[in-house]
């Protein structure tokens, strides 16, 4: 045995050994070592599938017009590049930074949502949803989803899992403002997503069941009132209810027609599909918007049940990784943000796919990572980055 001649650690060799252990531990806990490759690869796979589907959906039409058949694919690739950068940025800086700056994020989002309603916004098909930033259309309502998650997570984090009633009221108030703005665009689908996100975050944030039920009741009353007072435009009502009688031929060329053609596309894919670029519903343009909201019809038609299951399974992997991150997160804020992201993902997948297979109303909700649309793709990679961030820093 050696004789201890000095203060603890005065021996250099001991100190060095200690530091080595410490460094190994530090190394082991270093954020960069705790990336989630499964999450990233799955997201990239889905985006890749999306690119192939976008090509299938658009190339025939573009060829018919003698334009560049890669037009949409190219734009989506650019968005992917930006998205990957956004993911890296979101992963690198500590997510708790977002907690600090959540009021700023919230206010900036409100500004964007107001700007989009002003003449600066771009009106497409009667909806004022985009801000043109020189060749790139920013969709503030997409940013709004991120803002809602961060803001509510920051608010509930402070309550340490036992939010009191005034906080619940404050949370609802925080959501209602951007939701109202989105609703005015109008973008009914995203407004509903906001409601869902509020519900998910409150559930995970420990809001008491009776408050949640009360909120749900209030939501129902608000919805009914909106219908009654004609706040919701006729076409929105029609779109929301048309899926209930998709087989009705009188409604041809309307939203029921969209749903019917979508059902035909997916149904006719049968078990293994018709083959890439072989779907007649797709190539003959029977399914409208099949590069954006109805992109799942191409998966269903050209790759059949097998393809649909593969795509949905990849989403399951994302959800599984996301839930795992929510559980492993170091603090409640991380858990809340991760749960919010997972909730958003699950809702969008369900509403979008449900819409194409006739079990959900037609709303303008895209399929995350797969649908064509730059803002959505970038935001989704940013959210993936956020998940990575929470995952990486679960020890620090």
């Amino acid at each position, binding site marked *: 045995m050696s004789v201890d001649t000095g203060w603890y650690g005065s021996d250099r060799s001991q100190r060095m050994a200690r530091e080595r252990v410490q460094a190994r531990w530090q190394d082991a806990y270093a954020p960069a070592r705790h990336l989630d490759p499964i999450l990233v690869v799955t997201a990239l796979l889905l985006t890749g599938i999306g690119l192939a589907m976008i090509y299938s959906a658009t190339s025939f039409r573009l060829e018919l017009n003698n334009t560049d058949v890669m037009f949409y694919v190219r734009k989506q690739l650019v968005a992917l590049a930006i998205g990957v950068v956004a993911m890296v940025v979101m992963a690198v800086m500590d997510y708790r930074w977002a907690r600090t700056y959540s009021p700023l994020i919230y206010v900036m989002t409100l500004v964007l949502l107001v700007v989009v309603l002003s003449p600066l916004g771009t009106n497409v098909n009667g909806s004022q949803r985009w801000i043109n930033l020189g060749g790139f259309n920013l969709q503030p309502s997409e940013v709004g989803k991120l803002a809602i998650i961060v803001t509510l997570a920051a608010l509930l984090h402070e309550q340490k899992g036992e939010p009191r009633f005034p906080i619940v009221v404050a949370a609802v108030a925080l959501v209602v403002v951007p939701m109202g703005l989105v609703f005015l665009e109008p973008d009914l689908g995203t407004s509903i997503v906001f409601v869902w996100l509020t519900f998910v975050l409150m559930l995970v944030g420990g809001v008491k069941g009776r408050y949640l039920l009360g909120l749900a009741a209030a939501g129902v009353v608000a919805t009914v009132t909106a219908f009654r007072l004609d706040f919701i435009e006729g076409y929105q009502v029609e779109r929301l209810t048309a899926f209930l009688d998709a087989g009705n031929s009188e409604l041809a060329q309307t939203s029921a027609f969209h749903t019917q053609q979508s059902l035909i596309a997916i*149904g006719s894919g*049968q*078990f293994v599909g018709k083959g890439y670029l072989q779907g007649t519903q797709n190539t003959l343009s029977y399914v409208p918007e099949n590069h954006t909201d109805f992109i799942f019809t191409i998966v269903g038609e050209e790759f059949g049940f097998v393809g*649909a299951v593969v795509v949905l399974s990849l989403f399951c992997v994302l959800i599984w990784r996301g839930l795992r991150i929510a559980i492993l997160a170091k603090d409640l804020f991380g858990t809340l943000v991760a749960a919010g992201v*997972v909730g958003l993902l699950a809702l969008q997948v369900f509403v979008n796919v*449900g819409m194409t297979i006739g079990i959900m109303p037609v709303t303008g909700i895209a399929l995350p990572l797969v649908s064509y649309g730059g803002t959505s793709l970038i935001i989704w990679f940013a959210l993936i980055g956020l998940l990575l961030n929470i995952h990486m820093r679960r020890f620090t």
Partner: protein
Amino acid sequence: MLTVIVTVLLVALFSRLWFLQVLAGDRYAELAQSNAVRVVLTEAPRGDILARDGQELVKNRVAHTISADRTRLLNAIGEPRDETAEAVLARLVDLLEIDQEELVRRMTSVRYSPFRPTPIAIDVAPEVVFAVSEHAELFPGVVAERLPVRTYPQGDLAAHLIGHVAEIDADELEDPFFADLGYRGGDLIGKAGLERTYEEWLHGTEGLRQLEVNASGTVLDLLLEREPIPGADLVTTLDLDLQAEVERILEEGILASRNEIHVSSGRSLASTGGAVVVLDPNNGEVLAMASYPTFDPREYVGGLSEEYARYLYPQEGDPDTHAPAINRAIASAQPPGSTWKIVSGLAALQTGQITPQSTVPCPATWGWGKNNWNVRNEGSMDLATALMRSCDTFFYELSFNQWLVENRADDAGEEPVEVYQDLARAMGFDEPLGIDVPGERGGTVPGRDWKLDYWERTKDDTCARAETAAEGTYARQLYSELCNEGFVWRGGDAVNMSIGQGDVQTTPLQIASAYATVANGGTVWWPHLGQQLVDSDGDVVLEIEPRVLNQIEAPAEHWAELRQGLEDVVMGARGTAISPFAGFPLDQIPVAGKTGTAEAGSTQVPYSWFAAYAPADDPQYVVVSLVEEGGGGSQTSAPIVRRVLEAAFGLPVQPYAAGPGNVLD
């Protein structure tokens, strides 16, 4: 908690996908197919119908047609789609001079495919075509087209034989004949006559174009193209010139006969209708066949007008047009009168009761008050003479004796052999001969079985009448007898039948066939109008061979005896048809024939029959004429047959002159 919700949502998606793609996938695959592929059909030109020398009886003509695209002009419930469509419809109403209701009715006719313009006016004036084609901007969705329609170069000639073409109806669609050949609603089919019989060949195969169409209706690709295959042409056995003459002679004879008097009743002849059949006795070819009154097949092109439909099929209160649509030559089954005596004569020879040399008395009255047509006793005679004189009592005697023989067999518990009836059936009576024109009737050959069957069908009625008729009246006695014993084949039935009266009924075609059998010495040929079917390249696709339906075995001397009798009718010293043939070159073209004067109830003027073949020594033509309510056989029908033979042999056809009214057989 969140995991549970997410799992539930995903299970919902998977199960719905499983239902859509795996369970209901077939149905959706079909829907996708019908979305993307449009089928456009091109009608095949129908085959022509030609006379034996190749002259056209029916062919196709190109008609200027105005057609409209219903999907561009009308919505699903037949209202104008929009204001433009409304304006176009208004212009069409003015241009075509029809009302808008009618216009919409034509446009929505199920007869035409919705994927090609619907013909709304066939056979329009050239000005209308110009109006539409030069002002296309005023008529979006309307086109001037040229469509094939049926045309009749010979006018109404052989109308009953040709038949007509019209849209297939619901019953026909279910008919296995049409169903198996893949006919669809809206197809034009032969409805009657040769058009119907040879439908399968005349129709051709429609052309087909499968187009790939996108959601906006743009044609992207031609997936499949099949040229229409024109229908085959039907070459008939008809001699067109003879047919024309026969129709003319029949009409002339019938019209002229209406000025004649029926001697025994003193009334003028009604001559409501008639028919002539000309057969080749050596192969069963129909050389000419006419029925009067007739109709114009051109009226069927583009649909019958109401007026013409009421002429063809009069309704309550309309004047009686005497059923012009009926082809009397094959569909009018009437008592054959004395023309039947060739059957009775040959049967009598077959029973062995007489030989060609035997003689039988021909009294003025026979048995229990049945009279000969002639009031004088003509003494005993052989069969040939009995035919020449058309002696009824001769045949009464023989048929009654045969009836006794049959009854004895019946009483002895044996199956009676009905020689007369069996021979008649062997010669083609009692059933249709199967001529290749629809609508043929089989007539009736009465006998014991027939009587029993008839009694069973009618006894309820006769017994009821017997009950209600007043006591002691003749009617009560008659109906009681019919009610109680109406199934008995009586001697009176047998003797009536022997002279072609009573319940026996035959068509002119059957009589013609029977005389052909006598003329050719025993062969019953299948009567037919179709000769061959020739496709558009001139290749024969179907040769319609003459068929022997039956062969009547009889000694040559029996045939000789019959033929002698028939020759004597026309050429013998006391024949019943001498005077109608006065002036006919019988020395060059000997004619054999037989008159028939069929009683058809006590109130009607008799039906006039004449059956003949010529030349008698080498028969080339069998000619039969029937004029309903036309009086004596030699009075109306024999003069018609004479003129038909003149036409057939290229002799100058004499103007019509009625024969004697006093020869009532």
